[in-house]
């Protein structure tokens, strides 16, 4: 990992020096090894503090949306799964491809610090990633954990090591061995009774504090003004005053990204209350695949979103309304 960081840094410096790009969207180091922050480096600031390690899980493509009107050129570091979002953003004209230089990085999975903490480790001062396992130093002592168990959820159902779009590739990646079939979680819920499903979501969504982290981190949620922030939309709300508002926000958010969501998993990663929000998006993805044929948003740019598409023989909505069973 350190080798990769050096390679990246060297290459980025060159890109800044030779004027290929004016800025770099990468990560800067934090107070601990795990709290790296996405940051924009400029020619002037240099690459001081640049870091690339096992905790660089965030999807940087979102950071380009606010730069669409900028006349600067940006280098951005994208992991294979992030490139889907990039394609989707290009499709929707939410980024200016001409001003973007994509450095694809090989990836072998990133670590979720919350999962490490959930294993009872606290007071963490350092983490050493040894591919199969990680060693954690903390003020309460050292410990060793199997890496697969603390990978980000999105890595546990990795989409593969192929970069869907890039201008150059640095480092080699491997598809993280999936320990989760992508739709297992959805299937588990589908197998429940309606009452159980209702109870599940009621309990999960009751935790929502409406912080909007899921929305703001989402590379598909790029509305300049979200309907939930627009006082004239009739659905605006700053807090979940009732159970209904909890559902309304999450159903509509998932619906608005349906067919556009690349399943990057950022929503669940950032939720401070650990609500498994990806299970909503994945339900839409699974239904879209089943109803209209397999579709992966961001597989390539300029695909047609299945929600703004149709065939004459699509299944009828009554099939859902009349479905037998639980």
């Amino acid at each position: 990992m350190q080798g990769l960081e050096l390679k990246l840094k060297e290459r980025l410096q060159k890109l800044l020096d030779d004027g290929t790009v004016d800025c770099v969207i990468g990560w800067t180091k934090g107070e601990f090894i795990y709290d790296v922050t996405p940051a924009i480096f400029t020619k002037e600031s240099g690459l001081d503090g640049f870091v690339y390690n096992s905790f660089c899980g965030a999807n940087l493509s979102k950071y380009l949306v606010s730069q669409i009107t900028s006349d600067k050129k940006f280098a951005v570091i994208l992991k294979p799964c992030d490139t889907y979002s990039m394609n989707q953003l290009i499709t929707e004209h939410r980024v200016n491809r001409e001003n973007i230089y994509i450095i694809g990085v090989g990836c072998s999975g990133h670590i979720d610090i919350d999962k490490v903490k959930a294993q009872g480790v606290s007071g963490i001062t350092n983490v050493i990633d040894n591919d199969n396992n990680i060693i954690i130093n903390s003020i309460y002592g050292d410990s060793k954990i199997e890496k697969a168990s603390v990978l980000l959820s999105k890595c546990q159902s990795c989409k593969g090591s192929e970069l869907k779009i890039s201008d150059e590739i640095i480092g080699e990646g491997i598809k993280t061995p999936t320990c989760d079939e992508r739709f297992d979680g959805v299937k588990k819920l589908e197998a429940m009774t309606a009452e159980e499903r209702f109870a599940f979501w009621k309990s999960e969504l009751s935790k929502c504090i409406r912080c909007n982290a899921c929305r703001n981190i989402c590379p598909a949620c790029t509305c300049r003004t979200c309907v939930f922030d627009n006082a004239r939309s009739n659905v605006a709300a700053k807090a979940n005053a009732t159970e209904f508002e909890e559902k309304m926000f999450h159903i509509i958010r998932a619906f608005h990204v349906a067919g556009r969501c690349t399943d990057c998993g950022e929503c669940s990663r950032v939720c401070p209350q650990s609500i498994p929000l990806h299970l909503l998006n994945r339900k839409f993805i699974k239904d879209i695949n089943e109803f209209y044929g397999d579709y992966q948003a961001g597989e390539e740019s300029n695909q047609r979103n299945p929600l703004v598409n149709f065939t004459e023989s699509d299944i009828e909505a009554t099939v859902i309304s009349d479905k037998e069973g639980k």
Partner: protein
Amino acid sequence: MLKIGVFVCWCGSNIAATVDVKQVVEAVKLQQGVVFATDYQYMCSEAGQLIMRNAIEEYKLDGVVICSCSPRMHEATFRKNAERAGLNPFMVEIANIREHCSWIHKDVEEGTIKAIALANAAIAKVKLNAPLISGESGVTKRALVIGGGIAGIQTALDIAEAGFQVDIVEKSPTIGGNMAKLDKTFPTLDCSACILTPKMVDAAANPNIELLTYSEVEKVSGFVGNFKATIRKKARYINTDLCTGCGDCMSKCPSKKGKNEFNCGLNNRPAIYIPFAQAIPNVAVIDPVQCIKITKDKCGLCQTVCSAKAIDYKQQDEIIEREYGAIVAATGYKPIKLDKFDEYGYSQSKDVITSLELERLMNAAGPTGGKLVKPSDGSHPHTITFIQCVGSRDISGRGKCYCSKICCMYTAKHAMLIRDKYPDVNVNVFYIDVRTPGKNYDEFYRRAVEEYNVNYIKGQVGKVYESDGHLVLQASDLLNNEQILVNSDMVVLATAIEADESAKKVASMLTASIDTNNFLTEAHAKLRPVESPTAGIFLSGVCQGPKDIPETVSQASACAAKVIGLLSKAKLVTNPCVAHSDELLCNGCSNCANVCPYGAIGYETKLINDHGIRENRRVAVVNPALCQGCGACTVACPSGAMDLFGFSNSQIMAEVEAICKK
């Protein structure tokens, strides 16, 4: 605060019998903003309308709600009335308390409660209405007729006669359609060619008509008065300006094994051909699949013999874009395929033919020069048997559920012609019913029976098989309650007709609706039979449903009258209930443009001032002239930037809220 007036109509007893209108008036008076409410026996009457106008003036109303019949009935009436009183017509909303309430409910209490809820929803909506101004759009003074059969020709001639330009687009190399193939026509037995070809010539000669033969419409966009069509002129490999129609090429062409379409494939034609002697335009066409020069780059004989130098093997398809004010569908019909009717032996025996094939066999310009012979061996037939309703009135899935309408009459015609020309030939007709509504039709049929001794047998044929060189028909004779075996030399099948295969494609291009049989739907079965529900699209001939020639011609002329009415207008009033985009909210993501069926949404990069932040943004821009107000874009838009005048998000949500109040 808006001042709303509510007018509750009794509609005589239609509404008042199940809805307590007085109670509705009292209830709506409690709504915020309602400053006036009243009821009247017939709001749509002049007296009722006067009440409305007076109230608008006296109470300075900003919005009006009429609780009455369906808006599809009188919305236009009340809007006009509001305009007369100086109120913007789009500040009127209708609560449908007749069709959706009084007529379907019996209990007065229930009906009244529902009427109040519907009134409240309309009040909630009208409060959010905005005055809208109808735009105007021009009318392109040119019509497009798709199909060059008798229907298309007649419509085009009538439109041209009124002084408007018309283009006929015909997919085959000549106009004339099915009628050109017919020998004689019922009920007067005049020669089809004799009455059709003058019309074809007229069409070709009329300066207002342009014939685009061997061409197909590929794409239509736009809207009433302003259509834009993309037409593909298929390569003929002939320079039509030079070709004199001499026919030298045809005789020299070595590739003579093409099926002669005009003669229903009963004989062959060369690769370069003129469809028939009276074809319009009378120029040759090369079948590129059959031509040796084009397929193998050998031969080239026709080019050498052509004194006019009209042959061009390198000719390419040509794409033409034209603008039209109105479009007429006249796509016609074809006989159904008989592959599901094996019992008649159509594919086994050459002597089993369809009625259209018989027309060609009897026609002087046909493959036999008008001599009726058995196709199998060219010998003279002694008995000919007709079978009716082959594939018509069939709901088993093999045929068509409808009556093809023309078969009874043409079979009588055929029977008579045969008996007239060859008195020695016996003619049998197996029929289910003989249907002859029409002027002089039944008389015509009776002549076949009474004067020409045609043997009509009520019953159907179970199977046809060959035996000892002739055909045997096993059939039922219902009147005698017998199963009979009939020997016959030829069998003629009155094959059902169906909409031409192009109808479906044309309908979807024109966004005109079609029924389950692929016939185009009329706007109203009785009152608007020649218009499609889609504005600016008209229907001529069999594309709307089976018709005989007289009926087709009268419908074609009726259709022309409608087109002329439209093209005569200087301006069309456009619907102001169109989509519009809020530039501050728009993300420029193109979702809306993806679902727009009219291509009405474009994108522009504009300088936007978003609360003091100025930046160039890609934003959606709706062309109000193209937008038809369906609202699909509003739902595709995740940010809510796209909204629809007249049916805005907030208006619909206000209605929802009002309805859900208990």
